[in-house]
């Protein structure tokens, strides 16, 4: 288990379960500041055939964060052998549209709203 947190957010990776959980409010300054989260995602995806990204407690994500998630989804799509599931929350308004946009990038992406 790897986990870290910053002001208003927490990130956790259970490598064995190939599960990454992001929660809170993520408004980091540009893609560069998201590097630890990018590394967490890459770590969970490495050698995995299936992976889950739980965003159901991620209340806010700025456009740099949306860019980071989009890049990760495109890389998973291009890899071709990773079944990716994203768990969202129907109670968090930004997730409705943004997670649908991710599905357009990777048609096999499974998005579950809880």
């Amino acid at each position, binding site marked *: 288990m790897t986990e870290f947190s910053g002001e208003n957010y927490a990130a956790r990776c259970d490598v064995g379960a190939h599960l990454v959980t992001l929660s809170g409010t993520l408004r980091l300054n540009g893609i560069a500041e998201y590097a630890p989260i990018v590394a967490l995602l890459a770590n969970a995806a490495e050698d995995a055939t299936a992976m889950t990204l739980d965003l159901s407690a991620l209340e806010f994500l700025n*456009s740099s964060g949306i860019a980071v998630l989009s890049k990760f989804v495109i890389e998973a799509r291009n890899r071709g052998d990773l079944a990716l599931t994203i768990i969202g929350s129907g109670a968090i308004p930004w997730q409705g549209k943004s997670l649908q946009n991710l599905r357009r990038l990777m048609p096999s992406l499974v998005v579950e709203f809880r």
Partner: protein
Amino acid sequence: MGDTFGAFQSCEGEGAALESLLLCFSPSLLPLQQRWRNNGLSADFLSDYVTTFFPKDEADPASATRQSTVKGAVSYIANELLENAMKYSESNSLPITIRLVLQADRIVFEETNVASAASAAAYRRFIGELQQSDPADIYFHKVEAMAVSGDASGLGLITMIIDYAASLAWRFEAAPGGGEAVTTQVCLAV
């Protein structure tokens, strides 16, 4: 008067604004990194403020959804406008301002900052691109290019259009000390 692009709305005159809030930030007072968190604090303040005007009614479950939708949209749009202002402002220039205007059927955001001639020219090119193509096409094209280049600039503005159905307009005016005062106006129907 400068140049305007898009349907720039006047927020002046009787009845144009039911309520408005104006926040000003000096770009020279603190380095960007030390004030970055204030973008989120300001955005959250604006979004909390507007919830008063979209009260929850226990007899109407849709009212809670409406309040959280408006709150989320205001927080996202204000934060993106402020992040852009901090990124593209000239230091030692006029204050960065963001004004939120509450009208009967919409919320208008006006953010103004002074940008260098080069930044303003790049912004004008981006606006030209936005006006000539379908924003969703631009979004997916930019995201695919970003996955290779790492350049995510412009995504904040495009997501306001495609995820929040906001309409955008711009005004460019010569700034007294050089560069251009760039105003980005975002209208959100509510």
